[in-house]
């Protein structure tokens, strides 16, 4: 049997790490816990985790600062941020600063396990993840994540802010099944079902702008009854 993958769990609330640590251990990972940013950065060097679960709100050094230092030092270890759902700017920033995914507190541990699995599957060890790229390309589509602009067939296209956030989220999670609930939580910050319309109208807006035929899609595929999947091949551009 190959060595279990290593997860570094960073949260200042011991009551949370005491619960999640054993849970992730039982899920088959080797787990180390850090209770602040300094210890986390030190453990990254010695423990060499395959993935870091990082809380945003910590005294002294917050999760975002830890992430900035990691990425600044060209460390591409995948990171899942534990964010505060109230701050929508915080969520967008997490992805922009190079986190691979984020999950809003309070969350279900099983959902965290699913996200960890998805991020690890997508990760290419030692290589920067899609989330650190300034611009991403998929066929004729280019998303400039820093300037929040979208180009299709070299022409800039106008999208509503929500559709843009949705596209930005989907394009860094290619090939992953994104349920409507997850998209609502990630893009809108709503963690309860409000019907399907909210997500569906924005998907329709994206499809129209990208001339994507729902029956024969190049970019966004519908998973009937479940959600959506970004199926275009995504690459980093300079």
């Amino acid at each position: 049997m190959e060595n279990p993958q290593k997860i570094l769990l960073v949260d200042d609330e011991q009551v949370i790490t005491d619960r999640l640590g054993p849970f992730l251990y039982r899920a088959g990972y080797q787990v180390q816990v850090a209770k602040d940013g300094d210890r986390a950065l030190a453990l990254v060097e010695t423990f060499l985790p395959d993935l870091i679960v990082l809380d945003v709100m910590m005294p002294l050094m917050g999760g975002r600062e830890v992430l900035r230092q990691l990425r600044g030092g060209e460390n591409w270890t995948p990171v899942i941020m534990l964010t505060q759902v109230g701050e929508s700017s915080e969520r967008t920033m997490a992805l922009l600063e190079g986190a691979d995914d984020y999950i809003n507190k309070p969350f279900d541990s099983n959902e965290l396990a699913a996200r960890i699995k998805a991020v690890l599957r997508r990760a290419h060890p030692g290589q920067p993840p899609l989330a650190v790229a300034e611009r991403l390309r998929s066929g004729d589509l280019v998303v400039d994540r820093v300037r929040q602009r979208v180009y299709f067939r070299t022409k800039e296209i106008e999208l509503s802010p929500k559709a843009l956030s949705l596209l930005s989220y989907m394009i860094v999670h290619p090939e992953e099944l994104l349920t409507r609930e997850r998209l609502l939580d990630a893009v809108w910050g709503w963690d309860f079902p409000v019907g399907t319309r909210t997500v569906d109208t924005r998907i329709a807006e994206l499809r129209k702008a990208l001339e994507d035929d729902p029956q024969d899609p190049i970019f966004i595929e519908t998973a009937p009854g479940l959600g959506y999947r970004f199926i275009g091949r995504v690459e980093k551009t300079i």
Partner: protein
Amino acid sequence: MRQQQWWRIAIILISAIILGGIYYLLTRVNLLINPTLYLRGRLSALLIWSWFLLLVISATHMIFQTKRRNKYSEELEKLRYENKITRHRFLQRLDHELKNPLTAIRAGLTNVTSDHLSDYVAKEITAIQSQAVRISRLVADLRKIASLEDMTLEVMEISITDLLQETVDSLKSRNNPVDQELILITPSAPWPLPPILGDPDLILLAVLNLIDNALKFTDPGDTIEIRASEEGKYIAIEVADTGRGIPEEEQDRIWEELYRGSQSHGIAGSGLGLPLVKSIVNIHRGRVTLRSKPGRGSVFCIYLPIP
């Protein structure tokens, strides 16, 4: 209001000046013609003078009163604003302080769940789990209300007709279809509803909350009628039901956060649905109204301005 006050004061002052002029002319003329008439003139002059004095006093009084009232309403406005900020901060802190314990509780419950539990323990854990989720939802609703006040609206043109049609369609095609009769009435003649400007996600959230509320307080076989109409400068969206209605003394309070009416015992809910509706409508510069008769039903109405 204030402008009217000033007009009244101006009219009083002008009439006082005119009356003073008439008095002056009268005394001059009388003195020349007849001395007894002159005396009588003095008497009427006294009357006119006292009237004039009264006018001046009441005018000054009015000026001071307006000033005082203005100052008072300014202070009231300031106080209300401060209250709003404090309340907002309180909701944010509450939300923040509840998140970590909830994450821990839910993670702990997942940890102790396994296939080897006795039926009794498994049942208890499931019950605690669903309550933890319920609190999570409550926290989410609280946060939504708090964040509504300073969020940037994503304003675009919305067709209320389409929005309502799709909402009703999606409710009817749900996995567990509703037992109440859902009726949607939107005008098409002589013209359809004009579009409004707003955040479509929030407007939808408000409408869904009202319908959800109606579904909760009605029984199978009841009717829920969703009507939209043009009322002057507003579009009125009404959600009417033949449910149990709301006692008059509770009708003002149901818009308050966490208030649960006497009819809501045994019905799941956070007491935050209607306050959320009110907040959403307020930030769109609209207003909400309620008409209800216990035992007959309720009509909740949202007015949204037409640009």
